[in-house]
């Protein structure tokens, strides 16, 4: 159904306000968030641990939730699928040992119950991996932090678009103007994706790929924003998630690719014969690196954002341990100001990265499905035969006159 509404700038304000609020609150909460509290109590501020994937959800002053472990294990008897409510249960069942790195650096498998209980009490088990007592892990299907937040982002996207679709199906927004903040806000966003991203890059074929582009855009956007709220995490800061998204783009593009696309890769036209053999591997590998860059760009941007914020806050504690309390108090306002600034940058980056990913996806898919009729070195005809171009209507008070066009070009001197 054609959305015949002009998106007004006022519709963008609610979106902006709704997005800014989490950023502001998150910076305030950052000062009481878990790694900061842990560092305040004397433990290390583990920035990498907190940004990377983990098997527990951290709600710092209130506690943490351990996530279920689902493991596909193979031993001498065959394969079996184990499911545990959390890591503690897995360790206490006796079927798994903790792979722990002791202080002098060597790795030991801890299966003794007393030592295990001590480690569980000290929360060590959350930072090390577990191994089955006999056999090896084939695939680890455990629910991790990034999975939880990824599913949350996906659910949010689903709910929003199902609600939107239902509203448009009742005619609201098609036969009459869209009503309400929700519909207007998302109509602006959807029209933006359609007109600025899909149509310029895909041309006439855009309806086929628009659902994917919309999905990618909103999933990445909500996932990035979830990484900014307190106690949240970004699924897109996991390389697996971004790689899969880039894989979708790749598969979609190549599946619907036109013959011209393959011809251009394997037999580039307009290139001297000898160079073709150098160009073919370059083009072929370039196909994969373009999509891989798509994945890595998104992943690195999201991960770097989290790391930078935690590092800036960690500055306070570093100054504390090196120079003492007074200097640390002096550094705190500077550090917090920088954190606030970086949080705004991260918010901007969240939107920009979603836009860039979607736009480059559209570009790559567009390049793959584009069909251009190429005339290799054929000049336009020198003589065009007579054509009738009589207009339908004449001007004021005039009568329609029969008109024809005939073109004859002089040949240009050969270069």
């Amino acid at each position, binding site marked *: 159904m054609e959305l015949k509404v002009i998106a007004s700038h006022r519709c963008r304000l609610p979106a902006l306000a709704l997005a800014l609020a989490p950023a502001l609150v998150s910076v305030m909460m950052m000062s009481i968030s878990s790694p900061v509290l842990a560092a305040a109590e004397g433990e290390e501020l583990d920035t990498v641990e907190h940004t990377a994937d983990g098997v527990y959800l951290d709600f710092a002053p209130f506690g943490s939730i351990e996530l279920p472990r689902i493991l596909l294990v193979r031993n001498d008897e065959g394969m079996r699928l184990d499911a545990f409510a959390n890591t503690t249960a897995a360790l206490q069942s006796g079927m798994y040992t903790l792979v722990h790195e002791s202080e002098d650096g060597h790795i030991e498998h801890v299966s003794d119950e007393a030592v295990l209980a001590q480690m569980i009490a000290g929360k060590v088990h959350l930072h090390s991996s577990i191994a089955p007592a006999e056999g090896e892990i084939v695939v680890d299907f455990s629910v991790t932090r990034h999975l939880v937040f990824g599913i949350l982002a996906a659910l949010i996207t689903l709910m929003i678009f199902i609600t939107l679709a239902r509203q448009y199906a009742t005619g609201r927004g098609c036969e009459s103007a869209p009503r309400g903040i929700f519909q207007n806000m998302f109509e602006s966003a959807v029209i933006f994706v359609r007109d600025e991203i899909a149509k310029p890059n895909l041309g006439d074929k855009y309806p086929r790929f628009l659902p994917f582009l919309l999905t990618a855009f909103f999933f990445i956007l909500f996932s990035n924003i979830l990484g900014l709220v307190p106690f949240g995490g970004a699924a897109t800061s996991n390389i697996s998630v971004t790689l899969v998204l880039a894989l979708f783009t790749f598969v979609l593009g190549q599946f619907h690719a036109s013959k011209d696309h393959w011809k251009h890769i394997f037999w580039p036209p307009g290139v001297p014969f000898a160079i073709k053999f150098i160009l073919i591997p370059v083009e072929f590998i370039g196909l994969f690196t373009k999509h891989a860059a798509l994945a890595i760009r998104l992943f690195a941007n999201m991960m770097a954002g989290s*790391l930078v914020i935690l590092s800036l806050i960690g500055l306070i504690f570093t100054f504390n341990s090196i120079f003492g309390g007074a200097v640390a108090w002096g550094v705190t306002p500077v550090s917090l100001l920088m954190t606030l600034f970086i949080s705004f940058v991260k918010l901007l980056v969240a939107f920009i990265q979603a836009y860039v990913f979607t736009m480059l996806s559209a570009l790559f898919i567009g390049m793959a499905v584009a069909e251009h009729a190429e005339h290799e070195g054929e000049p336009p005809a020198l003589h065009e035969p007579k054509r009738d171009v009589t207009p339908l209507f004449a001007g004021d008070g005039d009568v329609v006159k029969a008109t024809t066009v005939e073109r004859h070009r002089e040949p240009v001197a050969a270069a």
Partner: protein
Amino acid sequence: MEATALAWLGAGLGAGLVALGAGIGIGRLAGPAMEGSARQPEAAGDIRTSMIIAAALIEGVALFGLAICFLLAIK
């Protein structure tokens, strides 16, 4: 110097160079973008969009380098 110390040193230097590269690249693109917008305010919207896209791409390359620095620092 032991390998770990060299790795940390490499990571630090690398991160600095990455920031330098990104800064120069994006700075060189932002300057003419401002000039173009000043000359032709009607085109400011288009220029802004192209600038943001180019900046994101340049930053992507910078972050590849940063990811390698992190790998060095961690492993």
